[in-house]
């Protein structure tokens, strides 16, 4: 099984959700925020400080890369900064999700969660 190199910090929840949102393709900040909100059923509402703090950390760790700023035709005529997952980020996300799946499996075995069908 693939393992994370030691030097990578573990992901926070906000970072994990951002990576998951970006797994669906390139997004700008607001689109990430909306997607995270929708996917968690409104549980996780990222504010600007948390969102861009996490994006900054992910950029520094090179899990995501910034692409050309451009206009989102669905919104208005302002230029927005877009981000996408890097290859490294995709790998990290995969490892992280596997780890979470293990934990969920454990929860099912211990009868804390309902067993999968």
């Amino acid at each position, binding site marked *: 099984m693939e393992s994370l190199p030691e030097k990578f910090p573990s992901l926070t929840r906000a970072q994990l959700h951002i990576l998951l949102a970006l797994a669906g393709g390139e997004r700008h*900040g*607001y689109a990430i*925020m909306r997607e995270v909100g929708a996917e968690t059923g409104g549980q996780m*509402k*990222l*504010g*600007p*400080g*948390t*969102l*861009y*703090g996490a994006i*900054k950390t992910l*950029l*520094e760790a*090179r899990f995501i*890369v*910034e*692409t*050309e700023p451009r206009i989102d035709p669905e*919104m208005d005529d*302002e230029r*927005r*900064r877009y981000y996408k997952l*890097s*290859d490294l980020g995709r790998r990290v996300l995969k490892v992280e999700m596997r780890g979470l799946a293990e934990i969920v499996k454990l929860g099912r075995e211990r009868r804390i969660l309902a067993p999968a069908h």
Partner: protein
Amino acid sequence: MRPGSQNFAVRVSRRVYRWLLRAYPRDHRLEWADAMEQLFRDCARDEFSRAGYLGLAFLWLRTLRDFAASVFREYRRRPRRFAPPFAAVATNPLYNFTPRAQQALALARKEADRLGHNFVGTEHVLLGILAHGQNVGVAVLKNLSVDASRLRAAIEQRLNPGADENKGRRHKPFTPRVKKALTLAGKTATALGHGYLGCEHMLVGLALTEDGLAKTVLEEFGVSAVRCRAEIGKVLAEKAAQAEGDSPARFRPRHAFEGEGRCIRQNARENIHGHVRLRLILVGRRESPPALRVTFDITEKNLPDDQWAVIQRAIQEWWRENPSTFGSWLAAVEIFDGSWCEGATPAFDRAAVAALKDAVGKAVAAGWLSGM
């Protein structure tokens, strides 16, 4: 609901949030404040159209919590491993980089970008100096009979191209060695009694930095720091002799720019639109009266002739007010062509700019300035 009220509430919220953003650390603010403001504005607009003032109030509650937590986090972030990014160093008045040196550093970043590297190393700085082409550093190398294109080739031969995903990254930190080289360059400038840090000093700094790739390659070409330093004196003396021959009122470009880091930054931002910013500064030998500063843009539509008239008028008006000390004025003309600004595509006529610079020089030589 009145149609105007939406805009008003959202607008006020946005302005208040913009003001709050000042609480973040400076480097975070410079990079992210615009994006955060935009995001908040979008949220405010959405919430308001969804749930009116109540929605906006809830958004503010959420945002304030987020604000408090994230300001705290940003200040606690561990310090960067590398030297501060380009802008922080280049605009630090302590360093007093010449515009050419700044351009060379910007070209160094471009070289790093072209090669797909996510850092700026000594080799990139050397490539930047060479790519800039018109500086004392290159003149020094030429006097030491180094062929610039062969030097370039020798450096590039030693480099491995990096990953494509590094291209276009905004954050390209200087490596610790570059920081060291720049510090040594500053020391060299001080030792030579120069009040500025130019490409020639950077060259010496690079040649002094142990284990730097630049030093290794320079040594291969028989260039040592000692030889560079000796050559700087000769090159500058030659230039000074030339300038004396050209014009009785001497051209002293550099000192006028001390402590003007901020302005230089702003110029860069404006240059994104492809304008050329030319600044004419007349600086007195004495502290008072204040120096005259003329700043204007040259675009393709703005031909040098009009610009020349603008300078002339500005100088005349200024002189009418301060007639007494004119004989001791020096003219300094500096051209920022935006080439060091990332992503800029300078859409201007280099020949026109050169002609303008020439015209100023001739006016000084003809005694136009001192004759008034």
